[in-house]
């Protein structure tokens, strides 16, 4: 199902700002929790970040680093401890909740259990800051609701009861609800959690589309490193001590910021693949010849088995060459001058495994 967003002709009030204008800025911000007269518990301090229009920003960090606290503080749902947050240049604490609701919206992790409510009715609740005391939706309000559902590709779900929706469908409807608030900034707390991979990719695609085509700023927290690296315009890395590093995803990879943000025993961030992998003492070295998908997955298989794999001939005791003909793969294993052809990676690994055991 492909949905193209066509905002032309739809009754959508355009409150976008000039290109790349800062939408939200934090100035020397300290976030955390105040418990009565006790010393406040500081989660993160000295935060100076800026969210620009049309930007998709992913907030990454280990569990408990304070991602949700930061999002909730930015949304004005939780008091800040020190510093300032400006939204469209106005101090957040000087804005009324209704004013904030027209400028930013939030998608939380908590599950909506409103029962007997259609997806359409749920998205219509996003018009709350715009309707009068009766909550009556105008033609224009309904136009925005329809546009929001269409924009996330959930128009077909409009008449469905929300408790019959799958997790992925529900998340799309929740994003449509946030969009119906016509905010310039949408904050999302782990929108891809609990979703399978195709659904996660779809949600990220929708969010990027909203940022690029609608010119909104989008900030989402996620644990999905790979997807964040591929889709985000900017990454905010929040370490366990609350320190925040920002930059383009690739810059952060090359500067080694990932390894510092997610320090963990037995796991290392691999600069080559942009992912984390298990740290183990290699059980042997293998030279791999070949290219394309065959070489990639052979490398994955060998690394999984615990080998250190080097592309090209480097004089390792074992060589594997990937052969591809007629759309089928073969693997030629060369060791101690002997050649052996395997029909599957499973067979290759079994032979290598026997060899290793025999060698020990």
């Amino acid at each position, binding site marked *: 199902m492909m949905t193209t967003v066509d905002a032309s002709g739809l009754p959508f009030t355009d409150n976008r700002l000039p290109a790349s204008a800062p939408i939200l800025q934090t100035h020397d911000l300290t976030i955390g929790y105040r418990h009565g007269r006790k010393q406040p518990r500081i989660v993160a301090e000295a935060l100076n970040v800026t969210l620009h229009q049309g930007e998709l920003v992913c907030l990454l960090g280990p569990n408990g680093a304070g991602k949700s606290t930061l999002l909730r503080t930015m949304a004005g749902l939780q008091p800040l401890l020190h510093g300032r947050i400006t939204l469209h240049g106005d101090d957040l604490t000087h804005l009324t909740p209704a004013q904030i609701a027209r400028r930013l919206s939030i998608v*939380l992790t908590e599950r909506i259990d409103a029962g007997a409510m259609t997806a359409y009715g749920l998205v219509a609740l996003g018009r709350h800051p715009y309707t009068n005391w009766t909550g009556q939706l105008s033609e224009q309000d309904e136009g925005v609701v329809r546009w929001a559902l269409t924009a996330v590709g959930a128009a077909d779900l409009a008449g469905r*009861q929300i408790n019959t929706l799958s997790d992925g469908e529900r998340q799309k409807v929740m994003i449509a609800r946030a969009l119906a608030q016509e905010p310039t900034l949408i904050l999302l707390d782990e929108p891809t959690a609990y979703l399978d991979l195709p659904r996660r990719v779809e949600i990220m695609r929708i969010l990027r589309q909203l940022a690029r085509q609608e010119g909104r700023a989008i900030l989402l927290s996620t644990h999905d490193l790979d997807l964040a690296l591929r889709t985000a315009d900017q990454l905010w890395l929040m370490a366990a001590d609350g320190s925040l590093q920002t930059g383009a995803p690739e810059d952060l990879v090359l500067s080694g910021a990932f390894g510092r943000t997610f320090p963990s025993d037995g796991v290392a961030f691999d600069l080559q693949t942009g992912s984390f992998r298990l740290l183990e003492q290699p059980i042997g070295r293998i030279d791999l010849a070949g290219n394309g998908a065959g070489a990639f997955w052979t490398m994955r298989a060998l690394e999984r088995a615990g080998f250190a794999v080097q592309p090209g001939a480097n004089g390792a005791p074992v060589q594997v060459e990937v052969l591809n003909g007629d759309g089928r793969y073969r693997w030629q294993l060369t060791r101690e001058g002997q050649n052996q052809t395997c029909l599957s990676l499973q067979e290759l690994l079994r032979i290598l495994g026997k060899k290793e055991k025999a060698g020990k």
Partner: protein
Amino acid sequence: MSDIIVTPQTQTRTWPQLGLRWTAVSTLLLILIALFLLSLTLGSVRIPLRQILVILLGGEADKATWATIVYAFRLPKAITAVLAGAALSVSGLQMQTMFRNPLAGPFILGINSGASLGVALVVLTVGVTGTTLLAGLGLLGGFGVIIAATLGAGLVLLLVLLLSRYVDTMTLLILGLMFGYITGALVSLLLYFSSPERIQAYISWTFGSFGGVTWGQLQVMIPAVAAGLALAWLFAKSLNALLLGETYARSLGLNVQRTQAVIILSTAVLAGTVTAFCGPIIFIGVAVPHLCRMAFRTADHRILIPVAVLMGAVVALLADLIAQVPGSQIVLPLNAVMALLGVPVVIWVILRRRSLRSSFAGG
């Protein structure tokens, strides 16, 4: 296969309709009017419908006693039933939304018990005697009892709400039951030191009845219930936002604290007033909101509040009609009728829809 034929869907798409479905509402209204008239004709003496209409329009009935029966007994009782049914179902609806719990209702969370305690305290200190608890109390006494019942109900509700910030909903329901036991124990202690007539009066009060309310007391009950309902109606939009939970409601710009305070006030006035005049009426507060959601398949309070008013009135009138056992001199305890006839109906409805989740999925 499916991509061969491409139809321009965006133009032909039909979107769901929001707002009241007037045909369904008018049907409910007609049922209510029919039941109202029926409750005037039926009783220990059967009065023909034509005569009822003549009496109501100020004409001369065939028998003079019929006018007396209608004006002195049946009309105030029918009006009371309508008010009580409407008030209890709307208070139940508000509580289920506020606590996001399908089991919430005036009785379950101990709010009726709070009202009972208030009533028992007032009755003991004022020192009323008589066959019914409220008989003999004048207009002023009526106000005193209402204030006591409302304060009792409001206090328990406030306590429940404060606790709801710290405990989960399941714990809250258990705590509500505990409040019920404590207030019940206090009431029985109060009654232990009362005279046998008062105990008798209190027990028949707990049976629940729409019959004991006089025209004078209706002058108090009508504005109190009207105020409670108006408050609920004014906050229908806010109640809708609360369906998403407190955090989302705040992110929509809602003043959650103020909204909760108003809902508590409205619920306490509605449940407290009814409990003061009719006794602790069970079933309506919990069940009618579910019936409304199922019948109208919506969670929108702008629809549910007027529908709950009508549906609650219908259920109350129906239960009262059956309790009268038309054509006999017997009057069954209202709460017994509510439980024996109402509960199987609700169970049947719930089982037919497989689960309550399809109408209300609570935490």
